[in-house]
């Protein structure tokens, strides 16, 4: 995912001189350094100073630039919610926050580095749009879309490389992608949980349950129609690498409870901090694997 982001930045740099990138001592890791090696005078590495970096991005944007700013999700938004709110979202400017290392799959670094509250925080800020791509192709496409769509964005990538979800595919902000059709149950996921959802649907099929799989990469703005449609199946399982409070599951429940009440099972981190361990071990321990989705889906069929 990160390499795909770096490649997209390099492509964008070539077609638009106003693209600038701000980093915070993690440019090698989040691959914004790829942009820096092509366009050294358009990459600003501000050091370990996230609130400074994000505010400098705001200044660049106010002066007419399209400013991407990237580091680990733990620290943006972690360190700088006030700056994001008041210097970026409120003036509604062209700062594109793209973070990596979202969720538990950060792994051995442990809880301090496992960001599981960001979707809730960013979703609550007016003007901010929240995007969680599922694989490298999605990252590439969405980086381009985010660059060419006016206003602030928060896009969250994961640390591990993801299985391929999209050979090709259309992406539109505010539109979910239905990756697999099904009428018994719907699974709505984002990020690394999308491949888990697809695997779960395959297992469910073998057990005679037809599951629809929806990639809700655009958590805000949200695709109400697709969710309302999904609510016509027997129930919805939501899956995210995020606290169960305030993230994708909550966003889906907000829509269904208002427009088409349906039973929902939310899969996410159950309001606790993560811990050290390999990404896969953690996803298993915290109940975020295909088998856990299968179990919840079956519960809804009862």
């Amino acid at each position: 995912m990160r390499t795909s982001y770096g490649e997209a930045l390099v492509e964008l740099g070539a077609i638009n001189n106003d693209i600038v990138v701000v980093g915070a001592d993690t440019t090698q890791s989040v691959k914004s350094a790829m942009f820096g090696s092509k366009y050294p005078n358009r990459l600003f590495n501000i050091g370990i100073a996230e609130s400074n970096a994000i505010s400098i991005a705001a200044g660049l944007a106010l002066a007419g630039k399209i400013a991407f700013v990237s580091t680990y999700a733990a620290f943006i938004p972690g360190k700088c919610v006030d700056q994001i709110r008041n210097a970026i979202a409120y003036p509604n400017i062209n700062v594109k926050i793209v973070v990596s290392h979202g969720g538990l799959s950060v792994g051995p670094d442990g809880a301090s580095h496992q960001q599981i509250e960001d979707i809730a925080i960013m979703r609550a800020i007016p003007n901010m749009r929240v995007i969680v791509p599922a694989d490298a192709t999605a990252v590439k496409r969405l980086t381009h879309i985010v660059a060419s769509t006016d206003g602030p964005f928060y896009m969250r990538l994961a640390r591990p490389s993801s299985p391929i979800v999209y050979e090709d595919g259309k992406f539109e902000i505010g539109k979910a992608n239905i990756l697999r059709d099904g009428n018994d149950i719907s699974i709505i996921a984002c990020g690394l949980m999308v491949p888990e959802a697809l695997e779960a649907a395959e297992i469910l099929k073998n057990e005679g349950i037809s599951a629809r799989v929806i990639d809700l990469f655009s958590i805000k703005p949200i695709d109400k129609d697709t969710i309302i449609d999904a609510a016509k199946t027997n129930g919805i399982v939501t899956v995210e690498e995020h606290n169960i409070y305030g993230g994708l599951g909550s966003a889906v429940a907000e829509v269904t409870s208002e427009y088409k009440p349906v039973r929902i099972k939310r899969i996410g981190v159950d309001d606790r901090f993560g811990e050290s361990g390999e990404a896969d071990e953690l996803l298993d321990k915290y109940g975020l694997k295909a088998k856990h989705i299968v179990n919840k889906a079956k519960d809804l069929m009862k």
Partner: protein
Amino acid sequence: MESLLRLNEIAKNTRRLILEAVAEAGSGHPGGSLSAVELLVALYFYKMRHDPKNPRWNDRDRFILSKGHAAPLLYSILAQAGYFPIEELKTLRKLGSMLQGHPDLRTPGIEYCGGSEGIGLSVAVGMALASKLDNKQWRVYALLGDGELQEGQVWEAAMAAVKYKLDNLTVIIDRNGIQQDGFTENIMPLEPLNAKWKSFNWNVIEIDGYNFNHIIRALDRAEETINRPTVIIAHTTKGKGVSFMEWAPEWHGKAPKKEVLPKIIKEELGY
């Protein structure tokens, strides 16, 4: 006090334990762990009043590892001091381990959950204020990375410590000149660092971070200083003790392979 010879021995063993733990974990931060070994050895085996058998002893001195990614260093020190068995180090960063990738209060001897840089000095200021409020003698020590000083919050805390005349607070800066993306003076220059702290009205001491005489004298002088906090700028080498890791930014956050470990321990550490 342990003899200088003994302190040197502990330092040597600490380097070995750090490398073994990080290699076993397959990830972690060797560079910034190796760079501050002598500083922590002097704190835990010379200066600080603490009791490994009673980690929550009320009158203990407190140590804050603000650069929390140097957890392998702190864990190796705590294990040798007797807070927990040395064998625990093999579980570093593994699922279910007491030794999390970054310090966590579940581990005996840990005072602060580090990991997000830039916060520790403020927390140390809060602790030092509490010690003063209660008329206690216990002191607070904090180790900060040099790259970490780029966080604005550090300077907010620096002002607060002076306002409240926190002479019970000693900060040590691991001035190894390297952060994650490269050299500090390229990424975001810190110099003149001594003058910065002086202008914030701190008592500033600069030392060679590997000379136990310097370290001990500086820690003693900090304790004798009244009415203001002391910062010790310790000149260090990131990756100290392993020639190919020294001054090499790429060893900031990368584990050596387990297979080459015996060779490193023999040839680099002289075991």
